[in-house]
């Protein structure tokens, strides 16, 4: 696949790599467009770049102009740039707007065998389709706009093999949080993470996207999963997927892309999905996670290299080492983001919420990942399930995943969040605290007001079985 996109060798051992799909949004593109103009260049393949707006959009009132003049300026700059350069923009109320990593797969823009780049680190998400997908910086956005290619070094590949299947109440989010807490947040530097094995094949495409989405939190620039029948049935009939005879040929090509069973990897690790319990983070990096049954680790139980950041984490989070995470009280519950803002995520959470009420004093809200997710959820009555329980139902966007819009933690508030980063200050308050967990676990926290094992709230119901999307 790499060779197919190889254009030339560059000084310094890098490759000039053709980019099959370039995704842009309002935050990392304006400076790239300006730089392009400065160099007197125009966009080389405007039809291979697709834009949307997600990071700064308000999720309550989306009337233009936005109340925040800076947000308004960013969106109008994107609109102007796309218009001038002939780039398709899936804007607000187009029916196709949403978080960039949610809409591209939904529209069938993401396909196996492609190279995909976007000025956003969670571009690793698209690797779930058997694409080489990675985040890039603004100067590379400029390069892709100018030449539809960029300078890139070949990555090493670590195969993460997952045996067994996830048990009831345990989700793809738990799986990836478990992998990251085991391998650490630096282990992936220089690597692509290829996920495989029965535990991965059993996952739906939406779950696979959750896994690849967070590969970057383990330090790996790309996540990757071989395309299979599940991949093809997800793509079949989407707006941009091939049709008719072409579909058959495409499937044939895609099937041949899968890595050989006896391929040699730079490194291999094995996990067993059966042993994984709901997992939550207690600290300030996505690697500081524990299973819901465990106690917050004590410094002497850790590798010395992890100790310093752990000490910082206890202090910032105000959590005691050696105590359970279960039962910690929660102020805000956020369901959304490119990790867990898809329809199956909302289903999993709605299952927990149904017939229950949000605990007193807890602010809980749902931000669908895209207009399409919101529409489907409404058609299935999920918005009402959430509203009746006391959740707020919002318009699509990134929202409190990084809090560039008005959705923010206040002061020392602590959130249960289905997003991907628990860094200090990530959710909009310099002292705000974040516990990462699956959407079902966030829903459970909303109901009890505390960190709760969601398995205590769901009764086994084959009809409600983990997403069948």
């Amino acid at each position: 696949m790499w060779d197919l996109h190889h254009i030339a060798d560059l000084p310094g051992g890098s490759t000039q790599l053709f980019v099959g799909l370039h995704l842009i949004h309002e935050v990392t593109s304006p400076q790239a467009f300006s730089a392009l103009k400065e160099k007197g260049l125009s966009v080389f393949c405007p039809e291979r770049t697709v834009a949307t707006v997600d990071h700064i959009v308000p999720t309550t009132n989306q009337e233009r102009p936005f109340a925040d003049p800076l947000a308004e300026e960013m969106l109008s700059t994107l609109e102007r740039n796309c218009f001038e350069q002939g780039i398709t923009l899936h804007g607000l109320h187009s029916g196709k707007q949403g978080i960039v990593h949610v809409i591209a797969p939904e529209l069938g823009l993401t396909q196996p065998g492609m190279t995909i780049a976007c000025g956003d680190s969670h571009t690793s998400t698209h690797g779930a389709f058997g694409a080489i997908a990675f985040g890039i910086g603004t100067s590379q956005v400029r390069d892709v706009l100018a030449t539809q290619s960029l300078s890139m070094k070949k990555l090493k590949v670590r195969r993460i093999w997952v045996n067994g299947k996830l048990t009831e109440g345990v989700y793809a989010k738990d799986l990836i949080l478990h992998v990251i807490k085991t391998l650490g947040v630096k282990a992936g530097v220089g690597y692509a993470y290829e996920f495989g094995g029965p535990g991965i094949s059993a996952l739906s495409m939406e779950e696979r996207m959750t896994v690849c989405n967070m590969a970057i939190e383990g330090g790996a620039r790309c996540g990757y999963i071989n395309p299979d029948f599940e991949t093809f049935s997800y793509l079949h009939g989407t707006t941009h997927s091939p049709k008719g005879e072409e579909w058959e040929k495409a499937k044939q090509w895609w099937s041949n892309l899968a890595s050989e069973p006896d391929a040699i990897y730079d490194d291999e690790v094995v996990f067993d999905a059966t042993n994984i319990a709901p997992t939550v983070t207690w600290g300030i990096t996505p690697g500081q996670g524990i299973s819901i049954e465990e106690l917050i680790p004590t410094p002497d139980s850790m590798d010395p290299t992890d100790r310093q950041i752990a000490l910082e984490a206890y202090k910032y989070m105000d959590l005691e080492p050696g105590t359970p995470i279960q039962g910690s009280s929660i102020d805000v519950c956020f369901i959304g983001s490119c990790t867990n803002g898809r329809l199956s995520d909302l289903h999993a959470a709605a299952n927990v919420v149904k017939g229950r009420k949000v605990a007193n004093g807890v602010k809980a809200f749902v931000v669908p990942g895209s207009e399409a997710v919101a529409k489907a959820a409404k058609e299935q009555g999920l918005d009402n399930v959430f509203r009746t329980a006391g959740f707020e139902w919002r318009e699509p966007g990134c929202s409190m995943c990084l809090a560039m819009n008005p959705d923010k933690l206040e002061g020392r508030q602590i959130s249960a969040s289905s997003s991907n980063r628990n860094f200090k200050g990530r959710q909009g308050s310099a002292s705000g605290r974040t516990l990462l967990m699956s959407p079902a676990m966030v829903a459970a926290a909303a109901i009890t007001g505390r960190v709760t094992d969601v398995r205590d709230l769901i009764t086994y119901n084959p009809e409600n079985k983990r997403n069948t999307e």
Partner: protein
Amino acid sequence: METISVFPKGLVQTVQGSAIALRGDDIDTDRIIPARYLKCVTFEHLGGHVFADDRKELRDKHPFNNNKSLTYSILIVNGNFGCGSSREHAPQALMRWGIRAIIGESFAEIFYGNCLALGIPCVTSASETIKQIQETVELNPFQEWKLDLCKKNFKSKDDIYFWPINIEDSSREMLIEGNWDATAKLVANKGILKEKLKKLPYLNNFKSI
């Protein structure tokens, strides 16, 4: 003083100036430049907001607040510096604050690449050496330093202190030969690119199968 307005250009072989130590592993790009400052359509004003939240919280205890020199060109960090979001705002903010080179134990990949694309070398050394450098830099705030990419070392101007450093061969070559700005090279290959476009199955209705 003049370093602050002149961004890296052409050959990057040495970086000279004051050095500043910033301790801690896993310092992410959200901390380098908090997300609220990403609301901008130019990078121009980012320099003043570098480490905004940490600086507010730690006041004089944050090295970036405790200015002994007017500008610092060389930043000494620990492990996995620049992890998290791919925002180029992070190296841009550091560059606009004055930083022209970073020495550390290890760097997150996208951050490393973003720095390289700006002509800012990220060089490494062993954990113990880095700690030594940090201590020495802190104890000698008025010392002038020189990072030499050709000779692969970092030393004080008065030659009292000296440490070898590592840098990836390819990055080193690009910096010292002035090839770190990739755009020009990429543009030159547009011809080959067009040829390639005709062969990629997904751009040609999967015809070539």
